[in-house]
Structure formats: C-alpha cells, structure tokens
C-alpha cells in the first residue's frame, strides 16, 4: 500500500505543480487552536508538517522558537499532540501528517512506544532534526515497520558521497535545506542556485521525492516551483504571532496565507 505521502505527491504532479507543505507548531497557541488551523489549511495544503515544540531547539530561527515557547507555555504535552493528530485525521479528506521535532522527545517517550502511538493516531511521516544519518539508521528501520516515512534532511554542506549514502537508505521523501541557515532565515542564496543543488540531489534517485524548505515565503515560493514539494514554516508561524499581536483570528489569517501560497504555485 502506498503511503498517503506518495499519493499527495502524485496528485500534485498530475496537476503539474509542486506539493505544498505547511509547518505549524502543535499547540500554537493552544491545543484547540492548532487543530482549527490544521482543519482550515487542509483545503489548500498537500502535506501538513506539525512541529513538536522543544525548548532547546538548535536549528530553529526566531519565528518557530516563538511559536514553540508559546505552545509550551500554554501547556502543550506530547499526548496533546497525538490528540491533535487523531482529531484531525478523523476529518474527511484529511491530508498526510508529518511530525517534526527533536530526538530527545522521542527518546524520552521510547522509540517503540512513540512509533506505535504515531501509527495509531495516523502520523504518516517523521522528521527528526537532530538525528542525522548514520545515527538514524536503526530508527529508520523501526519507522519502516510501521509504514511511517522517516524524512532525511539534506543540506548544502552534505558531501556528494554522503548524499548518495543517505538517499540510498532513505524512504520515498527527502528534505533539502535550501541554504546555510536556521529555519526562517532570509533567503541568502538565489533560487537558481537552490534549484541547481536540488537537481543534483534529484538526479541521484529521481524516484524519490525531494522537497525544499527554509526561508520560503510568499515572495520566493514561485521561483522554486519546479521542485517536488515546497515547505513553508516560519512565514506561517509569523502570521500566527502577528495575528495574536493584532488581536485578529490566527485561524482565518493563516488559512488566507496558505491559500495565497497555493495560488502562487498553480
């Protein structure tokens, strides 16, 4: 059986566009609100990444940090995150869910128990920011047994030899980090350069989907539309922060933003 993630990419390809992946932090700003946001953006996004907030995030820029600290402050616990996924997945035409976080949260929960729970509530993929290859080899196999994709991260600093090895061990989806940056940095490399790097990665195994993330906004998304998929995270987290500041409804504002992003890549 195909992982719903594969189906999402297939559908986008059929429509001759990249898949749109969104990233929001689970529990931002509350458990219920983050569920409402998922429901609202579901219509426009193809795959939903849900961040597991952690309080020592070594790869996240200020926007996602703000979201994560806000969620933790409002009491989000790992069980609540599973609750959000479970509720969301009950919705008709729900989209694939990828949980993204740091390894300590999984380590404390127990790898096995964590994956069982993921499977039960309907998580389709995982991104573990600080569990790189080859450290993640055994975890990759455990994910496989539960039909959950472990998405490998690839960076501009990843050597050719390493790229080959990582992609060989990877599942059907990989994530290319556009530039040397934490999440949400200003795009400091030209889209052309990013696409050149992307093509090199894509060539290693054209069958595997590669998404691009980090620094993608409403402005830049169109220039990268040749990719299999594009991830927008910090821009969305920022929208939530701004909405809260202006006492507006984050749910409608985020939905509008995602809608706009979608039109840019059609």
């Amino acid at each position, binding site marked *: 059986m195909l992982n719903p993630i594969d189906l999402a990419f297939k559908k986008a390809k059929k429509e001759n566009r990249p898949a749109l992946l969104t990233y929001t932090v689970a529990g931002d700003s509350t458990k219920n609100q983050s569920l409402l946001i998922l429901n609202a953006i579901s219509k426009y996004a193809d795959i939903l990444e849900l961040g597991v907030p*952690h*309080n*020592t995030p070594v790869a996240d820029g200020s926007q996602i940090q703000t979201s994560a600290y806000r969620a933790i402050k409002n009491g989000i616990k790992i069980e609540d995150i599973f609750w959000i996924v479970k509720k969301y997945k009950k919705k008709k035409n729900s989209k694939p869910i990828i949980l993204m976080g740091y390894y*300590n949260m999984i380590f404390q929960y127990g790898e096995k128990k964590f994956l069982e729970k993921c499977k039960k509530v309907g998580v389709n993929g995982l991104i573990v920011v600080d569990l790189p290859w080859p450290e993640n080899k055994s975890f990759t196999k455990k994910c496989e047994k539960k039909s959950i994709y472990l998405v490998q991260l690839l960076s*501009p*600093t*990843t*050597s050719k030899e*390493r790229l080959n090895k990582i992609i060989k061990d990877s599942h059907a989806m990989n994530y290319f980090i556009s530039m040397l*940056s934490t999440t949400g940095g200003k795009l400091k490399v030209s889209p052309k350069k990013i696409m050149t790097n992307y093509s090199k990665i894509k060539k290693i195994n054209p069958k595997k989907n590669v998404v691009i993330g980090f620094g993608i906004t409403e402005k830049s998304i169109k220039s990268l539309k040749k990719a299999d998929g594009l991830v927008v995270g910090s821009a969305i987290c920022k929208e939530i922060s701004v909405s809260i500041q202006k006492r507006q409804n984050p749910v409608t504002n985020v939905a509008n933003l995602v809608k706009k992003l979608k039109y840019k890549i059609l």
Partner: protein
Amino acid sequence: MKLKKKIPVIDQGNKLGFWGGKFGGNFVPETLKKPIEDLENLFNKLKKDKKFIAERDKYFKNWIGTPTRFIKLENLTKYVGGAQIWSKVVSDANGGAHKIYNATVHCLLAKRSGKKIICGDTGAGYAGKMLSMAAKKFGLKCKIFMGAKDIERQQPNVRAMKKNGAEVIPVYSGSQTLVDAVSECMRFWVANCDTTAMCVGSTVGPAVFVRICGWSTSQISRELKVQLIDEFGSIPKKLKLYNCVGGGSSSFGFWNEFMDYDKKQCEFIGVEAGGPAKSKRHAAPLTYGSKIGILHGAAQYVNQNSDGQIEETESISAGLDYPGISPLHCFLKDTKRARYTAVSDEEALKAYKLVTKYEKLRPSLEPSHAFSVAIREAKKMSKNTIVVVNSCGDAYKDKKILKNRLGKKYA
C-alpha cells in the same frame, strides 16, 4: 561499562562518539555534519603533530603562564584540623580562569582551518572573556553569545569581552542563561559554518568539542603531577582532588593525568551546584539522578521533565548553572571512577567566607562549591591525606553578588 587504562579518556568513545556506548555522540542538524567532520579530522591530525603541540605549549607557557601555582593552605589546614589542604591556583592563568586553555586551542584550530571568525557561548563570562582574548591575540573576529540574565550578573567579564573587541550578543530566549546561550551559538554556527569556527565553552556539545576541551584543560593535571612529585617526591598515597562541576571542563582537566591511578590512591570528587537551599531547582544532574537525555548534541544526564523538555536550573554561580553535564563525567560516574555530590548556594558562600578569612585566595563562586565539600570532608581525614582543590576562577567577576549576599566587606 569500563574505563580503559593507557588510553586517554577523550579517545575512549566509539566510532559514533559515544563514551560507554551511550554518552555523547553527535545529535546535530545535518548542516553541521560536515563542519564537525572537518574539525574532527583537523583535531585528530594536529593532536599527534609535534609542531602543533610545540606551538600550543609555547602559547600556554608564554601567554597563558604555566605552571599555575600549587600552594598549601596552611591556615585553613590548621583551622580545619584534618587532612592537608592544598590548592591548584588555576585562576593564576592569564584572564583568571581555566577557560583560557580551551579558547586558545580553538583559536589555533580556527587559524589552521582558515576561518576568520570564531563564535562561542558563555555563562559566567569566563569562556567568553577568554575566547575574546585569544581571538584578539590570533587576529580572529569574535562573537560571544550570553544569556541576558548572565550579562546582568557578570558585568566585569562582559566589559572585558567588549574591551577585547568581541561582539556580545544577549540571548533572551528561555531562561536567559548558559543553556540558551549554547543553543543560540549553535544556531549561529548552523547559519554561518562556512566562514565561522565555533568554540563550545566546556566539555559539552557534539563529541569533538568534548574532546578538544578535555584535551586543552588537561594542562592543569599535567602541571599538578609534576608539582606533586616536586613537593612530595612521588604521587601521595592518599590524594583527593576536589573540583566544581558545571559543564565539567576544569574538573576533567584537573583529573585527566591521574585517571589510571587506583581510586583508593587518587580519588576524584566532583561538586555540582545544588542551587538555593530553599529551592527545588538545581544544576546537579549527577547528584540528583537526572535521566539520560539529549542536550546540545550529546546524550548525557540532564535535568528534564517527563516530556523531554529541558528544565530550568538555578544556582548562584553562573558558571555551574547548566542543566546537563559533560558526557565524560557521565562516563566517570557510571564507571565509578569519580564521585559526585552537590552543595547549596549558601554552603558555597560560607566556604568563600572561610577561605578568604584564612588565606590570600579569592576563589570565585564556582570553586567555592568545591571548597565547601573539601573543608567538610578534610575534617575527618588523616594528616597524611593530601586534599587539593582546584581554584579554577577568581572572585573578581562575582563582586556584585558577594556584596549583595555577604556585605561590602567581602566584595
């Protein structure tokens, strides 16, 4: 889990950088894999390179000033009335603390790798101050990340960093202390690893940083070994080495050369920060049995909640105010080579008062923790027991806190 003899502890990790199969490692974002591998290759090559070692020793000798003094605390010994109490006055080193060794080595490595900028974290401000000194000495641009709370409480070191031309970047996230400073520094390195070298201020972080720091601070025990033999003719039959432990860089360096001695002869005692007596918060993950978790790229015992969120710490001493602990110390604890305990803020202050009352020595709040336990335990020991406390920092930076807590007389 076993400690091997005749192999430096920093080299006892496995292929993936785990000591005892479970402490340390490299839990880092993909972007840092390459710069870390480059640094590993460079360090592994240079630590065997005689020319590089000669260069290091030249700067250690002429610039840092080696050896630092090894002195008997006669009055304190008399007052306590038990074991002989000695001190290795590491705060004699240029800049006033042991952090200078690691900073110097990182700058030498940065020069070799062709990097023009070096970034680092700091808690008490010593790691930052020393890095700013070394960066200036070696012509590197320097960026220091420091928690906003620590900037407030360790002003003298902040001024020193700025004077040396470093940019001090306040960190406002989380608890605004060392833990957040390290996170922010790592984030900066993620975004700038092509032009910038990173110096982690203690024996923490991804495995290579643990190794470089331990290799650098081991200068302390190399000197002490010679000084002990000079003084006593041989390594004393009963030797007790007391050291405070935050991240664990000074204690590891203080013990390293004595690792292969039987612990009945050379005992290591690590003293963690227990925090305010009335507070539940502490910075003593080894003493209070914290669970293994991942912090700043390494598996270690760390204060955390059941979800795996890192818990806030509390200690009067900014240099010990860290929720985790070096993988090297986790390894030494589980192999039972070292013994760990903690004292409260109040006990550390009491020890500071005693030491300064009887001796011409002003240990900072960090080594005051070690003095507290050394004084307490020395009472019950025989006269032929040699207690050595590493006075690894000077109290000048703690002026404001000492004045507030003990009155003007002690500031």
